[in-house]
């Protein structure tokens, strides 16, 4: 019994040590630095609105060309253009960027359960236990994590409404 235990422990230690050494000695550096760069440009809220599980996988997909540079709704048109520039994609081929969305709480249904603001990655929801919660739209990235967290199903995502400061003239009809 004792011998068997000792032998197995020894084997484990030696093999583990060898594996550790090998991983150091033969470490591969094939991480694309571009992926890191693209990831740092993305919003980083891991919202998953692009359909991928977070900003890291999204960056990889964008670099590999499996996702469009316009796939990020919180980043909007500005991000799409800076990504296109970084990846040397012609801006005129982009098409419409995903429109940024904002979370809106239906005040009649909110029970003040505090789950949504605990889920919010940007602290964009304020409230207290059994008090009406409310979204600070300036901080909301439209990541929809609160929508999933809400047991009352009272949070929805809506496109930002235009105000006098955000409205601007549309492009004239081409001559």
């Amino acid at each position, binding site marked *: 019994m004792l011998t068997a235990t000792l032998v197995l422990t020894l084997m484990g230690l030696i093999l583990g040590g060898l594996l550790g050494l090998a991983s150091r000695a033969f470490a591969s550096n094939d991480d694309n630095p571009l992926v890191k760069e693209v990831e740092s440009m993305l*919003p*980083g*809220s891991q919202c998953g609105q692009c359909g991928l599980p977070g900003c890291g996988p999204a960056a990889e997909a964008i670099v590999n060309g499996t996702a469009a540079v316009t796939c990020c709704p*919180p*980043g*909007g*048109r*500005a*991000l799409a*253009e800076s990504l296109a520039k970084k990846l040397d994609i012609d*801006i*005129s081929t982009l098409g419409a960027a995903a429109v*940024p969305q904002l979370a809106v709480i239906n005040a009649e249904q909110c029970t003040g359960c505090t789950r949504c603001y605990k889920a919010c*990655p*940007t*602290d*964009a929801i304020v409230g207290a236990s059994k008090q009406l919660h409310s979204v600070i739209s*300036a*901080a909301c*990235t439209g990541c929809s994590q609160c929508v999933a967290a809400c047991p009352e199903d009272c949070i929805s995502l809506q496109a930002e409404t*235009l*105000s*006098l400061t*955000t*409205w*601007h*003239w*549309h*492009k*004239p009809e*081409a*001559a």
Partner: protein
Amino acid sequence: MFAPRLFGSGKIRGGVHPDGRKDATSDRPILTNLPLPSRLYVPLNQHSGDDALPLVRPGDRVLKGQLIGKASGRVSASIHAPTSGTVLAIEAVTMPHPSGLPAMAVIIEPDGDDRWIEIPTPPDPFSLDPDVLASKVEEAGVVGMGGAIFPAAIKLRQGRRFEIQTLIINGSECEPFLTTDDRLMQERADEIVEGTRLIRKIIEAYRAVIAIEDNKPAAIAAIQAAANKVGAIEVMVVPAHYPMGSAKQLIQAVTGLEVPAGKRSNDIGVLVHNVATAWAIQQALVYGKPLLSRVTTVAGACVAQPQNVEVLFGTPIEHVFKVCGGLTGVPARLLMGGPMMGQILPSLDVPIIKGSSGVLALSKAEVNAHTSSPCIRCARCVDACPMGLVPLEMARNSRADKLDAAQEFGLRDCILCGSCAYVCPSHIPLVQYFEYAKGELADRRSSQQKQEYTKGLIDARKERLEQERLAKEAAKAAKEAAKAAKDAARAAAKAEKEAAQAKTQHPESTTTSPADNCVREEQP
């Protein structure tokens, strides 16, 4: 090597000479004390910057001049009740803006008494500190009345941080149809000159110049007479040449200096205020009166009696037209401001605000609409551009959404004066292209800013969660340590108790423990 400097020669680059059409209103006195409308719709944002915070509730009684909206944020301006009455509601109403979008406004039902709130007699403003004067201008809610609607106090404070050589009071009023500054100078010259002296005192400028275009002889005479009474205020006549009233062009005409691209007039030691702003500042500092009304030109072929009127803010423009004899036909276009840079109005149900220099009801003949045709690259727009830009290339790139290229051709420096569109033989809506491109760029800047802001929030949250976790662990460790200490103390107490018991059972052993006894017993 050196470009010839236009030192105060009154010349500007480019520009156009549109038909003035000022005769209909320039000889008629300003109509004051208008009948009150049944409702006043006083917007909480009549300035560039953030909304004022409402200080009243529906049902409140307000007096004329009472503060109803407090400036909030870095750039904002206060709003006062234009007359006495009852607050009916604070709700969104359609704004005098081409979008036709609503914004929050205080709706007041006038009681007809027009009763002022008590205003203490202010001390002589010339005996006060410049910073105190700037604060008083801020309290009065004065904004730039020439059209920029930038809060005047902020501009004055900015001016104090720079060495201002020349203060220019802008009386050039180059927009066709508009005569509000002209009439103001003719009728209130002494107040404007006093306002000029006060602004000069606040910013400590070396020189103060009131610049007036040569098509306003009556205003020039009135201001000259008023300035002669006090001295040290220069009156300069500049040629009538659109866009002379734009700050950068006027600076060039008066001083010969050009504001470098991306810089402000402060950087070259010049500050420009409109004559109407000078008047409003004088009213605020000498009489303590907040800004409640303005003189606005009501003109256009569809207005029965075109004239200048002094209107309370919040008055619907329909009421203003009614005072001027009503509309003679269906206007082809409603404008707030002049025909070159004014904004198209969505309807007659919008209020007069602090920046309303004029309301125009133009007939079809005056609008002169054309369908545009392709650019023939004649470069007339390049000659007309007062900023020395290349409008045809800016428009071409804006149309293709190549906004960076459009910026390289000068989009950022474009003042949207419309000179290029005025001369374009193809009638291309150049300004609309620039408005579109500037708006898109602003959108991108704001989404970039939001992204940076939310990134910061995400990092802050992560850090906070980490700290919370560490604090929890520390608390747990402390609790465990406390428990261990308690256990140890309990064990010690138990041991002591046992020792005491042992002592009572073995009275012969006095100070030693049972263990000691054992040891001793083992000794031979």
